[in-house]
Each structure stands twice: as C-alpha cells, then as structure tokens.
C-alpha cells in the first residue's frame, strides 16, 4: 500500500520522532509506515488521517 505520510510530515516540519509522539507509537513504526514496510491498522490509519486533517483515502491508497 502506498501512502503520503512522509510528505505530509515534511509539510508540518515534524521529525519522525515528533510524529511518533503525536500518534503514541514508536519512531520505528512511523519509519516502517513511511517506507511501506508496514501497513497500519485501521484505527492507526484513522488516527493519522485525523492528525493531518485529511480523509484517509487521500493519505493511503492500495497502489499498483
């Protein structure tokens, strides 16, 4: 699954650690999501969407 978490985090000027603390997850989890190594659960995906104030489908897409 593709996602735009890294771009959105960059727009906010946050580090991975900043985003991790806001989401109450580890920095490794943020890194794994950004690099596509790990697809977050639905609750975490909704939390990310709420944090960036965007619909979930504009951040995550199934990809090719």
């Amino acid at each position, binding site marked *: 699954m593709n996602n735009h978490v890294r771009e959105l985090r960059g727009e906010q000027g946050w580090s991975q650690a900043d985003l991790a603390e*806001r989401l109450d997850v580890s920095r490794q989890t943020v890194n794994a999501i950004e690099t596509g*190594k790990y697809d977050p659960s639905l609750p975490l995906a909704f939390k990310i969407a709420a944090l960036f104030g965007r619909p979930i489908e504009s951040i995550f897409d199934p990809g090719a």
Partner: protein
Amino acid sequence: MSEPSKSPSKPTNRRVLAMMGGVAVLCALPCLLAGALTGRRWLVTAGVVAAATGAAWLLCARFAREEAMRPVHLRYLREFLPAMAGYLVLIMVSGTWVPRMESVAGRVALAVLPLLPIVLLIRAMVRVLRDQDELERRIDLEAIAIAAMSTAFGFFSFGLLPLADMGWHVRGDAVAIWVMPCLFAIFGIAKPLVARRYREHE
C-alpha cells in the same frame, strides 16, 4: 493535539541497555568467582548466563539509537528489573539453603521460591506486549512464535536422541531447567532479526 514534550533528561534506549548490560556483567563476576572458589556448578552457570546476557545487552546498546524510551517501556523496566533482582536473590538463597534443609516441605518451598519473581516477570512481559504499539507487538509476537517453536523443536530433538543409545544420559531436571533460558535467549536473537524486516534506510 498537544505538542510533544521535549525532555532531554529522559532515559534513552542506548543508555538503559548499556546500564543493564554493565550491571549484568558486574553481577556475573562475583557469581563466577564464588562458583570457582566453592566448586558450585550452579553458581558458575548463573555467572555464565549473566555474563552472556550482559554482553548481549552491551552489544545491543552499541547499535541502539540515542532516543528517548517510550513510557510503556519505562514501565516495563520498572517492573522487570525488581523482578529480575528478586529472582537473582532468591535463586542464590534457594541454591544455598535447599541442600542444607532437612524437611522435605522446607526443601520444596525453598526450591520453588524463585518462581514468585518469575510470575511477576511474566506479568510485566504480558503487560508490555499488550500496551506497546501495533508494530512493536507484531515484532514481539513473531519473535515469541519463533522462540517457542525453535525451543520446542530443539528439546524434542534432544528427547529423541537418547533412542539412538549413544551412551550418554542427561538428567531430566537438568534439561527442564534450561527450557526457559533457551526460550528467552532465542527470543532475544529472533527479535532484532524480525525487526529488520520492517526497517529501511533510517
């Protein structure tokens, strides 16, 4: 959403691992020394296990990032370290006094005494597994599955080997006592390997 707190004095993964590794190595030295002087094999074994654990933690500290430890893991340490210290004290008490105790009931009570902190240890592990984030939990559960299956496979194989009648016999209790250390050791090896699958050019 509130701003993340910036507290540079928070314990970091690297510092905590280095401290735990140092303490384990320091604990190993008197065990090895006392074991060598008194000829008690269990003391030497305890020393070797503590030294190996300490060396592994120091190695992990070498590669760990200097980042603040999450509250869920700090809580785990607050529960894990006293339980581990209690276990070490009680295993010494048990190992020293069980052979000198005359009554069977007393020997049984002393022999199972180190299990009390082990129960607290298991509780701490279950709590951290439940409360950490979803990827951390997945990594831990995969590592536990690998450790459980490998340990079962290893001990089952060891159980089958005597059928070949190779002339050596191992006491059942000596084998059983190594199940839990093997499980933890394989978990410790498996976890960073599993975690590597979720890591990329950080």
